[in-house]
């Protein structure tokens, strides 16, 4: 196993920048998840680590080795593709043995390694089948097995769970976590699924337009997002963003004074963007003294999610999503008092956290 250093990594096609100034150190054995919207450069970054893309600037180190100009076959990295990329004309056994055969391992060692991985991933009964005869989940496990069997320095996962149905995805997510603990491997995992990112990662790296927005443990990104992009990208339902103002009396939104709500820095003054997670808000009847909030609005739409419900509340010109426990007493048209428990404050110009 080995860590990865990305030093000022850049990639551009002509005048179009895909990656800009990526400086990240990934520790040996760390599970890092790259997230971002489509086209943010996360797959390009992963492929650059694999050596499948050339980078136009910077350097990539794996362990102590500068691999920037090293071909993919000599980087000792294993990749699980979104498409799984199993060799269709080879059986599961041949697929698993392929990298070892190329390495010219002795046949007995290959057999032992394949048997071990097959046992680990419960592929024993499938070894003589062709990929076309397997289900999606089984193919995914074979792809994983082909990566594991080589004992590479680094594992690269390119949206490995995105082709599975919801139940299987959850199951494989847990499996991945277990596997990582067992192998102690360095993993870089690309996904656009934030649940995957939050549950699997030791650290999450959020990319937007080829630029790193924030790197840190999931909790840190969730609790203290560096900017409005990270704030709205992580967390479901997304954080509410409203224009507000902080003066000596504290925070006010749309002219309604809310006071010194938790999360507003005492040194902050002037116009701000207020971030409010739907879970950080309490809804109460307008007359009740629950929060004694002056913030009152009308419920526009309600969405039931089973254990919780989402209320879409209109307060003046602003719309706010509030999460409440089910069964919820709120119906469309009802008046509701909104009590913010905790807010995030961002610079309205740059979007940076204040």
């Amino acid at each position, binding site marked *: 196993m080995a860590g990865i250093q990305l030093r000022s990594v850049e990639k551009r096609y002509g005048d179009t920048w895909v990656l800009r100034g990526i400086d990240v150190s990934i520790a040996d054995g760390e599970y890092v998840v790259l997230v971002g919207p489509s086209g943010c450069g996360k797959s390009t970054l992963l492929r650059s680590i694999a050596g499948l893309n050339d980078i136009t600037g910077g350097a990539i180190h794996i362990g102590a080795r500068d691999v920037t100009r090293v071909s*993919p076959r000599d980087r000792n990295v294993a*990749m699980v593709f979104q498409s799984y990329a199993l060799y*269709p004309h080879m059986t599961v056994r041949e697929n698993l043995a392929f*990298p070892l055969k190329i390495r010219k391992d002795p046949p007995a060692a290959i057999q032992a390694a394949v048997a071990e991985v097959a046992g680990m991933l419960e592929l024993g009964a499938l070894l003589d089948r062709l990929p076309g005869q397997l289900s999606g989940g089984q193919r995914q496990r074979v792809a994983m097995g*082909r990566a594991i069997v080589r004992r590479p320095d680094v594992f690269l996962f390119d949206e490995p769970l995105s082709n599975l149905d919801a139940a299987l995805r959850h199951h494989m997510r847990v499996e991945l976590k277990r596997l990582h603990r067992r192998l102690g491997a360095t993993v870089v995992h690309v996904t656009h699924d934030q649940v995957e990112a939050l549950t699997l990662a030791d650290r999450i790296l959020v990319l937007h337009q080829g630029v790193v927005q924030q790197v840190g443990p999931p909790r840190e990104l969730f609790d203290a997002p560096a900017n409005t992009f990270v704030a709205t990208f992580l967390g479901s339902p997304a954080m509410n963003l409203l224009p507000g103002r902080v003066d000596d009396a504290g925070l006010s939104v749309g002219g309604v004074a809310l006071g010194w709500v938790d999360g507003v820095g005492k040194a902050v003054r002037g116009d701000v963007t207020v971030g409010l997670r739907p879970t950080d808000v309490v809804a109460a009847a307008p007359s009740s003294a629950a929060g004694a909030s002056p913030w009152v609005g009308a419920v526009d739409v309600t969405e039931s999610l089973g254990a919780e419900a989402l209320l879409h509340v209109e307060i003046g010109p602003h719309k706010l999503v509030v999460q409440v426990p089910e069964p919820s007493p709120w119906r469309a048209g009802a008046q509701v008092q909104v009590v913010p428990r905790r807010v995030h404050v961002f610079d309205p110009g740059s979007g940076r956290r204040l």
Partner: protein
Amino acid sequence: MRPNPVVVALAHVGLVIVSLVTLYPVLWVVKMAFSPGQGFSVGLWPIPSSVTLEHFAAVLGTTASDGTWLFGRQLLNSLVVSGATSLLGLVLATTAAYALSRWDFPGKEPGLGAFLVTQMFPGVVMSVPLYLLLDLLGMLDQLAGLVLVYATTAVPFSVFTLKGYFDTIPRDLEEAAMLDGAGRVRTFVTIILPLARPALAVTGLFSFMTAWNEFVLAATLLGDPRSFTLPIVLQRYVDDYGAAWGSFAAGAIVVSIPVVALFFALQRHFIEGLTAGGVKG
């Protein structure tokens, strides 16, 4: 919905008629081959009234003036020329098609266009320049010269067919092989070529059949009966001095057997969707 039995019956009657129309000329050739005498049969009934193997014996037993078995030699010529043509054509075409499928390089589009243009001219147009070229190379009346000509004319079609097939093979598979430690050549040989088997079978068979049946260039470039390929031999049965239709028909059947056999041998490779299942699906 169950199909209407009348419609089904009519469809079958139609299919039987079309089959008969297709098979009738073939049956007629069979009739001439097995009928005594060298006359041109004019009867409509395609079954011979009496059966003889004399034409087959005559064709297969043709000997040269020095007593050597000429037909055997000519059959071998045809096999060698057609086999070598497919092999050489496939080697040139697979590598060219792979490069055209996977890389962008200057001249790629014009090159593909040029390949297409060569397909628009009949082979006869090239017979004079090819004759002069082979003469210059000292390869006239040699099978190697004919192989060279056939292989180069087979390449454009093969490149187009193979490139189209390579385009459908996901690049992920090559990238996976590269990350598994395989180099370009190994990836090509162990991943791409096995997956392209149906296309290789089709293009190989096409090159073989084209070379096997080609007459005009062979007749132009070969002069010695000992270097003749079978189409020239067949043509000699029906020439200005007389027409041995019986021998011609027997020869035609003998000549078609290897191609038919090859088709059946390669038939199992003509399966589509070999790549199904390798990537999500």
